[in-house]
């Protein structure tokens, strides 16, 4: 995908994720023809119902066109809560090796995933503030506590910064990995604001847990 296209897609994906959630955001990435990254043995996560629209799979070091892969659908208890399914890809016939570069090329999918995660983070931050506004301790809402305000401010700062990081059409792989790291941490800060309620599988903030899992399944190796 060209840098210009990626930058348009990034803003749109952020909005889709904020308004319609993780599966919608991932679905939009996959429908855009971006190859889906998989683990070395071919495992990955993707939304239910988009299998037919996958253009290709990215195994480490190789790209497998969809019509040359056998796909087995597997259960994934946490992924399913967000409308995702686990699949195992086995390539048939010869594979197209990916280009080897000095620094591993980040997959477009990982770049676009950051925008989806950003949209989810923004949506969940708003939900967390609404929740804490209605949680009264000592006669005042929890949002009046300075530690809570610090967490909100830090999260907004990370979100705004990452939006600009993702604007960069020449973003190096290491910077993208760092952006995901910060999304992970900010996501956890927001998750904790819901208290134990956010640890229920039925709670909407589970999208941040599942998005973390998708990042694990899609991230580019060697960004450590």
């Amino acid at each position: 995908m060209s840098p210009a296209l990626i930058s348009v897609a990034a803003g749109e994906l952020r909005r889709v994720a904020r308004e319609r959630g993780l599966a919608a955001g991932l679905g939009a990435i996959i429908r855009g023809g971006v190859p889906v990254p998989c683990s070395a043995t071919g495992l990955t996560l993707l939304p239910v119902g988009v299998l037919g629209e996958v253009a290709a799979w990215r195994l480490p070091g190789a790209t497998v066109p969809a019509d040359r892969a056998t796909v087995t659908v597997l259960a994934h208890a946490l992924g399913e809560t967000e409308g995702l399914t686990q699949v195992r890809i086995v390539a048939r016939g010869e594979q197209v090796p990916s280009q080897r570069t000095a620094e591993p090329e980040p997959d477009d999918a990982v770049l676009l995933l950051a925008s989806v995660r950003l949209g989810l983070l923004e949506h969940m931050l708003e939900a967390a503030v609404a929740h804490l506004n209605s949680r009264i301790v000592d006669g005042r809402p929890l949002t009046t506590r300075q530690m809570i305000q610090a967490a909100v401010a830090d999260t907004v700062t990370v979100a705004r910064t990452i939006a600009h990081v993702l604007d960069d059409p020449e973003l190096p792989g290491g910077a993208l990995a760092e952006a995901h790291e910060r999304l992970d941490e900010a996501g956890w800060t927001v998750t904790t604001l819901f208290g134990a309620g956010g640890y229920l599988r039925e709670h909407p903030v589970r999208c941040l847990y599942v998005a973390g899992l998708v990042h694990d399944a899609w991230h580019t190796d060697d960004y450590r």
Partner: protein
Amino acid sequence: MDPDDELEALRAQAGEHAAQLRALALSVDAAPDRVDEHLSSPAMQAVRGLDPIALGARRTVAMLVELARGDAGMVLACPGPALAGVVTGIIGSPEQQERLRSAVADGRGWAFLAITEPDVGSDATALRTELRPAGDGTFRLYGVKRYIGNGARARIGVVLARTGPGPLALRAVLVDGASPQLRARPLDMVGLRGAQISELAFDGMPVGPQDLLGEHLSPLRRGMWGVMQGFTTVRVQIAAMAVGTSLAVHEYVHAQRRGWRTGELAVLDRAHAEIAAVHRLTQRAAAAVDADRRHTHPASLAKLAAVSLARTVTRRLPRLLGRGALLEHPLLEKWWRDVCAFEFMEGTSHIQRLHVAQHCLKNGFDHDN
């Protein structure tokens, strides 16, 4: 026996059960309601026998780190007096302690400690569950408790409720898990699923004077005071389980490959050094609890450090195994989910920060301790 040798012996004893706990971990995570199929396992029975009050914090921590190195979710799935035992051990009468003990003595019974409510979590002194006087010296218990470990399958439990306004009106009562005035349902949680976190609704459960914990203590010591002491004890236990889980992840990742590159080994070594440091911090906190349970801040500090460590280790080390490690290795995915629970148990990190800061601001820093 030399105290260090004794701790080493306890560690070795616990370590023997860790492998069995781990072997059961994924099936209990998938179906927490079927844990009773495994109750005859020697490991589960050994955990059941662990009595933190009799053992003291240092010995308990030594054992819990090793057991959690097997699997913390399984440790919390084991039957036994658990948190109810800690509070009853601190403020219960010998008869009440015996009542709790015998309710779970056959090795197939759980107990709960119910404090949190849908609208009240961190600030337990604001809880609303009521002990309404029935006019004959007894009470009726009304209210809803939520996120209660092993609540829906327990035979007995301790509930914190109020007899009137104000913190001194908080009382802990021993209740029967099979009472018709108790409706309990398990909640579907993200992780630590073996602990079967539950919601409990009390609708007029009769409570007699024999059920009130701490009747033999002064009014200042019979309610929240005793529970707070229990919290301190349990906080170091949570820290120990966070350390144990971090060790489990480290060992698991390390064992997956032979030929680690230098840079990767450096990541593993750095993580190991951090785990070892927080482990020592937790042991130190345990020693402080043994010396005086009223000193809450060492336990808070250890929990704060251990929870953050466990989050980092479970997130970052699996990446050394390449893309999709959490899908390829279900145990790593489970531990990644499990450690998030430690954040909420016995006080969130914000609450621990407040404890640590308030202690230091009031008493100074005492840098050598």
